[in-house]
């Protein structure tokens, strides 16, 4: 097993005829993901690397039985694309797009919840179950299959940690990038719960950062509902308050969301918190 995706996932790429969408669609296919088609309004009937392109997600789902969709369209079209996927019955929507307005995301998250679709992201690198499938942009080389679940707000930091684990001989069940935006579809707690319930996951690495209180809520969950050990790293200890550190959500505001309080909460919950992400493999050994 694994969480969210395995090799049976039938994947659509929304924006497949775009530069980024097409590039990653190919890499995903090379990795072994079952990309069944793509969606680009106005290009229905074309083909991409042997896969059909549709005008709408609804038609694509009717034709291909896709159950997962990767949204790679520009920010001003992304909210609509996510809702389209949720409305068409896609069970897991993964949104790479960054710079989507927060107001749009609040509506989109409520919409996805009402339609029973899970949203990952936006502004996330996607999800990878090593050896089975990947949906998103996580590079194939950063992980091998194993029993540690990884959940993270960021992209390259996750690759860094995955790569360090790989070098230390530690494999990964599933890597889940939840994204660094203020309002995201799936939070740490939801992913932790999936890992807790996944028989193939034995330990978890959690990579958080400053801003918001998702890590505090996660600490609470770790304390009260988890049996599996968690190793964590929180980025942004050296960030000054009031400044947004690249990610729209990474800002210490009004004394809330600092790395210190998150680290303290996680440690109090029994998680082992690394001062340096390259120490994570040691904490998981």
């Amino acid at each position, binding site marked *: 097993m694994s969480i969210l995706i395995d090799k049976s996932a039938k994947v659509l790429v929304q924006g497949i005829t775009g530069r980024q969408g097409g590039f990653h669609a190919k890499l995903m296919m090379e990795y072994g993901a079952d990309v069944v088609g793509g969606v680009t309004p106005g290009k229905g009937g074309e083909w991409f690397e042997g896969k059909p392109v549709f005008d709408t997600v609804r038609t694509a789902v009717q034709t291909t039985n896709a159950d997962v969709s990767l949204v790679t369209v520009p920010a001003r079209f992304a909210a609509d694309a996510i809702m389209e996927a949720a409305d068409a019955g896609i069970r897991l929507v993964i949104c790479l797009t960054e*710079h989507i*307005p927060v107001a749009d995301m609040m509506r989109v998250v409520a919409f996805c919840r009402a339609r029973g679709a899970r949203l990952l992201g936006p502004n996330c690198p996607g999800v990878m179950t090593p050896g089975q499938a990947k949906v998103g942009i996580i590079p194939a080389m950063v992980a091998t299959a194993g029993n540690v679940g990884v959940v993270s707000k960021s992209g*390259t930091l996750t690759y*860094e940690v995955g790569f360090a684990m790989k070098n230390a001989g530690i494999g990964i069940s599933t890597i889940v990038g939840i994204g660094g935006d203020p309002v995201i579809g799936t939070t740490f707690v939801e992913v932790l719960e999936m890992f807790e319930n996944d028989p193939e996951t034995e330990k978890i690495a959690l990579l958080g950062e400053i801003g918001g209180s998702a890590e505090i809520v996660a600490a609470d969950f770790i304390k009260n509902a988890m049996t599996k050990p968690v190793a964590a*790293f929180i980025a942004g200890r050296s960030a000054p308050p009031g400044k947004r550190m690249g990610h729209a959500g990474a800002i210490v505001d009004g004394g809330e969301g600092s790395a210190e309080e998150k680290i303290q909460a996680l440690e109090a919950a029994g998680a082992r918190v690394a001062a340096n992400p390259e120490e994570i493999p040691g904490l998981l050994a």
Partner: protein
Amino acid sequence: MKLHEYQSKFLFREYGIPIPQGRVAGAADEVQEIAAELGGVVVIKAQVHVGGRGKAGGVKVAKDAAEARRHAENILGMDIKGLRVEKVLVDPGADIRQEIYLAITNDRGARMPLIMASMEGGMDIEELNRERPEAIIREHVDPIMGLQDYQMTFIASAMGMPRAQWRSFGKILRGLYQCYVKSDAELAEINPLVITGDGELLAVDGKVIIDDNALFRQPALTAERDTSDEPESERQAREAGITYIKLDGQIGCMVNGAGLAMTTMDMTKLYGDADGIGPANFLDIGGGATPEQVAAALRIILSDDNVKCVLFNIFGGITRCDEVANGILTAYNEVKPDVPMVIRLQGTNAAEGNRIISEAQLPNIISAETLTEAAKRAVAAVKEGA
């Protein structure tokens, strides 16, 4: 993007929220003129993007136009927490019976707009929240349905608003919610909203922050952007499409990805803090950075005189390290940095990238295998250079 008080209040006015009939000015002459026109007591308020201006002397009451002029002369050009006051708002004095707090903001955790309201306005909301959290009424708004009338009644009733003011309070709350939605605000705050001696409500101070990601559909607000207090280097970075934030340390950081960029900063501090060494900046060059962007980023980093070493930390995923290496060489030749540069390339095509760097045999280049090694070497380079 933060709006000034005057911009926020003028925006409120467009949504039917009553505000004092003041005007904004950049010179003492103008202030005197406005004060004379308004007549009576006026308040001169520094327009800067920072809290605590009152304590810093940036807000003064004047009995007449002459006094207004004298205050304006003091306030205009004043330095408040590092920011120079370029403009003041001249408002007529209000007859304040009660101060109310009212704000709408994004609740990240609940993923919904949150209304906060309190009859104990005027003070800093974070302070009030620490001291008397029960004095703040909190009400979430369904982001799809929007604010409902019954919620307005609930808020007015629960906060203890006098019944005589429910109707006008409801209009203001609806206006503020409209303003928040239509302006793509992260925060729309009135503090204080006052009840005047004759029972009217008036938004005496206001603060609006717009979601930068929504500016593409907010042309009118984008045109209001005041960048006069933005550091020159951050402006340049913004224009080059790079996220750069200046900090106080000595190690310039160039990293791909925001989370890794923060982490790289943290590592320089982790290993350098004992010696007073830390990051000089946050910088994310993003995914597919071109040699031109690398060069621009390098120039921006080096424009900070505190920088004694530059640390490149690139984890190649989709980005190929050989391409980044070539970008670094191009940038190096263009910018000719005179400080040591620690270069750590890892991930896709790392070996090839490192080969390119080492074969170029540039002076002052230190390579590293891991992030830990890179951070330690950068700290050591700063210590050596000192």
